[in-house]
């Protein structure tokens, strides 16, 4: 090994010099955006280093910039290759470490004389801390992440950057900051609140650390620990004067004798006086001054990041908006406004988002209007999209639809322009898939399930890991079923009317009561053929598809829940703990704290909650931490609600598909959800009862209904109006006390029947189903009582009326049955237009 190294170093030295100067030249050309010449130089460099991953990497970067990001896929492939290769190099050099350690001095000598060794090698042999694969390829990883980011693939970008961030400490500061900022953007866009907070904290730390270092540097010459102290210590021969034995306190009970030198006396006095000089050395460096960062950036030959301070404020605003701490967000926006002179469109957009979140829609619109700069075509996509969001919230669906489609058409214009002329500007990220989701929501709200599903499918390209998306597609299927748009069933699922065929005339007239296809046989055969692919632009809506989507959503929810459900401990400490353990990443950032914290807990010496009292830094970040723990609470609750919603839909779908067993188990798991909404409990009981009936398990079915029976034949309201609160939106208005109470209005009228059932109707439904069940059990008298009560609440329910008719017919009272039918208001008599000529 030794010989190999030395031989290579001696022979290649001039060559290395040459390549070094070529590399410098290439770098200069690159940073002056002279890509063509840069490429020539790089190709030259490649001749001497044919498979150097870093050269290949830079070539890929230049080529990609030169042709204007025309082929991101290929670009990613090249970068991934580069990354893999560097990692291979790194592990290869890691293998050498073992051997190298023994020959430490030799290797060091060689490597110091040889400037162009593989970087990992010279460094990795010495220490376990650093140089590993990540270090070698972090620039490539960053560039991959940037590309995914520009493609709106945030989760991919995130997964690339995260491991880099875990080991960010050794990375040079300029690049580390770039990595942090990108990861922060990605984390915010993918709703990783605690991660985002961690990164913000980290950025603040490193930016202040740098200033501290420079200050201590400048002041060190005047400080009281000049090198002469060391001089003194080392110049005096170390002769033992006395043996002092100090018993080690905790860990080591054995007594260790330490030999002290004469110089120690001097040191002792020195240290003593240093400590005793009260407050003289407390010149704690003042935090902040970000020009240090920009200085390193020049070192790294990266364009200076202009105003990190403003950026950090804006990131905090975004984080606070994400965590719904609107008050703090408002404060932060103000701070940002003070720093940002003039119209910074980013600030205005955020301010508008804040007002939108607060429900102050007119102001949000005003701010949006002020922001643009609509001539910039990329901004106009966002502008229209956001207007669409605002109008959606205002319940103005027509207007909202117009804005969303404008946003989409604008972004398709951008796409066209991009393919036509290759510009050198980095491409504006394509937002159309994000807007597509909004469009889907919009059409779903307008009751156009097929269109909505089409947009959701588009959005699924990037939202495939969001449970909500799949729930929405399932809701499209359910709505299509409701509207009779499913291929298999021509008719609407629950006809709001009874259909009666009138056959014959006069004496021979007969009434044929509505062809009620038994519900459990309404399974759609079409969907069974194949599951529509995600890429299919026109998904075939069906109950089978609905089931698939719901199962998907459930799966995703379970995996995301494992993140959010990890805690639940009540104490302060637990909350702290949770914020740390939430993400391994966060841990790494505040690793010191965590470790020390664990240590403290382990030794039991530190009282609970002490972390909260940590000095300095805490004030601004405690807001962030608080809002994050609040946010995690909110997320948990939201996940619960989504879970309930998925389960209730799934139970319904299984019933529709004629799978009472699955419907039953789904309904049961719904009923087992902790803090389940009473509305969902009601539906769960109803579905479970029906499933049990279909399974001929009447007694168990009855149990699900009888819990609502208070005394005799009276049923209490299964839920109250307040329980329906979930389905009502906040009243829009200019309200400061948004966080507090907000007026709720029922939006059912606006938003196309989110939920039609009110508590009273739910009661009627229970009566009617109890009547049905009593009838099935043969207790006609009871059935009769129940059905009468059902009809007093739901006089127009076709099901209740038919049950009543059934009971009449059962008792042979066909006259009553007929008169009941004739008095029913929701009934259609279809003439039997059948004529046959035959012998009479």
């Amino acid at each position, binding site marked *: 090994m030794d010989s190999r190294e030395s031989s290579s170093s001696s022979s290649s030295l001039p060559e290395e010099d040459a390549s070094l100067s070529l590399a410098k030249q290439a770098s200069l050309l690159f940073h002056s955006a002279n890509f063509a010449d840069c490429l020539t130089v790089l190709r030259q460099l490649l001749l001497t280093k044919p498979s150097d991953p870093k050269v290949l990497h830079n070539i890929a970067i230049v080529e990609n910039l030169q042709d204007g990001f025309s082929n991101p896929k290929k670009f990613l492939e090249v970068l991934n290759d580069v990354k893999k290769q560097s990692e291979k190099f790194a592990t290869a050099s890691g293998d050498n470490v073992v051997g190298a350690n023994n020959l430490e001095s030799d290797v060091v000598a060689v490597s110091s004389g040889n400037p162009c060794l593989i970087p990992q090698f010279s460094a990795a042999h010495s220490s376990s801390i650093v140089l590993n694969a990540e270090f070698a390829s972090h620039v490539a990883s960053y560039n991959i992440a940037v590309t995914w980011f520009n493609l709106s693939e945030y989760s991919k970008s995130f997964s690339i950057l995260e491991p880099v961030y875990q080991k960010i400490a050794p990375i040079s500061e300029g690049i580390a900051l770039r990595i942090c900022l990108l990861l922060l953007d990605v984390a915010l866009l993918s709703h990783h609140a605690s991660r985002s907070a961690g990164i913000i904290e980290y950025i603040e730390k490193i930016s202040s*650390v740098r200033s501290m270092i420079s200050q201590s540097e400048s002041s060190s010459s005047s400080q009281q620990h000049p090198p002469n102290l*060391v001089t003194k210590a080392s110049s005096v021969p170390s002769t033992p004067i*006395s043996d002092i034995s*100090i018993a080690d306190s905790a860990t080591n009970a054995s007594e260790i004798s330490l030999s002290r030198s004469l110089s120690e006396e001097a040191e002792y006095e020195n240290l003593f006086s240093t400590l005793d000089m009260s407050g003289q050395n407390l010149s704690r460096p003042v935090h902040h001054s970000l020009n240090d960062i920009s200085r390193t950036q020049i070192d790294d030959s990266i364009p200076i990041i202009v105003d990190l301070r403003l950026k950090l404020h804006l990131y905090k605003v975004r984080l606070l908006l994400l965590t719904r701490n609107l008050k703090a967000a408002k404060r932060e926006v103000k701070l940002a406004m003070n720093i940002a002179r003039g119209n910074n469109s980013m600030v205005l957009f955020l301010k508008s988002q804040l007002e939108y979140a607060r429900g102050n829609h007119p102001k949000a619109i005003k701010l949006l209007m002020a922001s643009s700069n609509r001539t910039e075509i990329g901004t106009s996509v966002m502008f229209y999209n956001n207007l669409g969001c605002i109008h959606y*919230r205002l319940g103005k669906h027509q207007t909202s639809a117009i804005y969303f489609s404008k946003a989409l058409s604008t972004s398709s214009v951008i796409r066209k322009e991009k393919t036509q002329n290759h510009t050198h500007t980095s491409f504006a990220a394509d937002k159309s898939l994000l807007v597509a989701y909004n469009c889907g929501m919009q059409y779903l709200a307008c009751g156009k399930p097929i269109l909505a599903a089409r947009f959701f499918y588009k959005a699924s390209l990037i939202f495939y890991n969001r449970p909500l998306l799949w729930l929405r597609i399932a809701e499209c299927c359910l709505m299509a079923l409701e509207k009779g748009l499913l291929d298999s069933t021509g008719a609407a699922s629950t006809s709001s009317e009874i259909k009666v065929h009138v056959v014959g005339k006069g004496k021979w007239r007969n009434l044929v009561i509505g062809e009620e296809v038994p519900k459990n046989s309404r399974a759609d055969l079409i969907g069974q053929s194949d599951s529509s692919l995600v890429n299919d632009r026109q998904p075939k809506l069906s109950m089978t598809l609905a089931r698939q989507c719901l199962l998907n959503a459930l799966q995703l929810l379970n995996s995301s829940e494992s993140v959010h459900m990890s805690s639940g401990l009540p104490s302060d400490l637990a909350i702290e703990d949770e914020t740390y353990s939430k993400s391994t990443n966060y841990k790494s950032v505040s690793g010191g704290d965590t470790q020390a914290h664990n240590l403290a807990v382990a030794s039991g010496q*530190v009282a609970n909650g002490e972390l909260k009292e940590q000095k300095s830094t805490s004030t601004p970040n405690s807001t962030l931490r608080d809002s994050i723990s609040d946010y995690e609470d909110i997320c948990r609750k939201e996940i619960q609600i989504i879970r309930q*919603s998925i389960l209730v839909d799934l139970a319904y779908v299984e019933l529709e598909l004629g799978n009472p067993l699955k419907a039953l188990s789904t309904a049961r798991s719904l009923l087992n959800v902790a803090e389940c909404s009473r509305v969902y409990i009601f539906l769960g009981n109803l579905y479970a009862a029906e499933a049990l009936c279909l399974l001929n398990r009447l007694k168990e079915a009855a149990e699900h209904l009888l819990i609502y029976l208070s005394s005799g034949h009276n049923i209490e309201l299964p839920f109250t109006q307040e329980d329906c609160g979930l389905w009502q939106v906040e009243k829009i208005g200019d309200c400061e006390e948004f966080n507090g109470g907000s007026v709720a209005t029922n939006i059912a009228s606006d938003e196309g029947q989110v939920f039609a059932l009110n508590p009273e109707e739910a009661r009627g439904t229970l009566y009617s189903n109890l009547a049905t069940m009593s009838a099935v059990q043969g207790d006609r008298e009871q059935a009769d009582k129940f059905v009468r009560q059902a009809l007093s609440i739901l006089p127009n329910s076709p099901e209740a009326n038919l049950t009543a008719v059934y009971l009449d017919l059962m008792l042979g009272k066909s006259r009553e049955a007929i008169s009941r039918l004739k008095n029913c208001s929701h009934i259609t008599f279809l003439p039997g237009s059948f004529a046959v000529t035959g012998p009479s």
Partner: protein
Amino acid sequence: MISRDDSKTLYSLLNSGDLRPFDQISGDFFSSFPASLHFRLCSSLAILLEDKSVLRSSQRLVAYAILYQAYSSQRPSSNPFISLLVDAASDNDAEKFERAFILQLLGSSGSTSIKEVLKQTASDYIKCFDIASHAFPPREQLQQQFCEKINPEQDHCLFKSISVKNVVPDPDVPRGCDVNSSEFDLQPGVQPKIGAGDRNETAAGLLENFSFQGLGPQWIRPRPPRLPVQYDELVWLNPDNHHELLWDNGMCADTSKGAVVRDLIAKALKGPLAPTQQERVLFELVSDPKIVYHSGLTPKKLPELVENNPLIAVEVLTKMIHSTEISEYFTVLVNMDMSLHSMEVVNRLTTAVDLPTEFVHMYITNCISSCENIKDKYMQNRLVRLVCVFLQSLIRNKIINVHDLFIEVQAFCIEFSRIREAAGLFRLLKSLE
């Protein structure tokens, strides 16, 4: 439901009973309808037969013939309508010729073979019917004969099994008139009066509209509500921050600079460095803040560095304050033997960076117990004095909150109250109380 055309065809088959023999009609039935439809058509016929007034006698006989013939290739007991046939055959209210006909179909009565019977037309059969040549076995016997192998049908769904026929006669005749009187039958060539109706029309219409399931009690299955739009479900778009692609400066870069530091640090672990060497290390550490990660230091080696070169240790730890490994270093520092140098390092660290509170507390606890455990009085005094001024410095500089450690520190002061600095510390404590 049967399609309109199918029901028309079927009804015309029923009507042809006056002119054509049974076997021809059933032959037509087989040729007109695919086997998959047979059951549904037969079910409709069965329902139609239930009401005796709808079909005329000849039509009924044809219907029975079809019901039988459709499944004649199998044994009678596997005919799904066998119970209906048996019921009809043993129905005392029914016409005798009808019952006899069914019995003959089933092959349990009469001298003439079934084939010959089927060669007749329906009207001929009725005309030539001779009651004397027929015996009517009781229902039980018939049931035993034909239904024994049928298990009581297992209904899959209760809603179905208890359903009633969904056809209700609703005669539309003037009030007070007898529905059954023949005056409301349609007379050819006569203007139909109010209340008159055509039996044929009704029968065919019923055939079309019959539903096999009948009417059962209805279960209300409310649709699940749509989940309302969530707080941040709609995607709000903000202008993106621009993230440029990065040029890798590591290309062909000089990687040797770490070597010097590594070398010196290795020496620094073994003994105090010469002043120039120390300066060199400090210079390198400052000029490249990341070089510390290439210095070859590990937490295990830290105590040696602290003892031999406390200033370098401080600088190294300061540079690594944000790395993930720093906690390991702190743990080592806290647990190493208390010494002048370790205290110096900790003291300098407290003024240079934010140390985790727990760490400082642990260190103080360690100091205090070290003081208590020293046997040598002289050294103990020295150490106690040092710890006291150290604590005072920490308190004055607000690096620790006294109240967190109050009891512990107070006990320490009292124990060593003979020492001047301890008394001073005690006073400081009291003043802060």
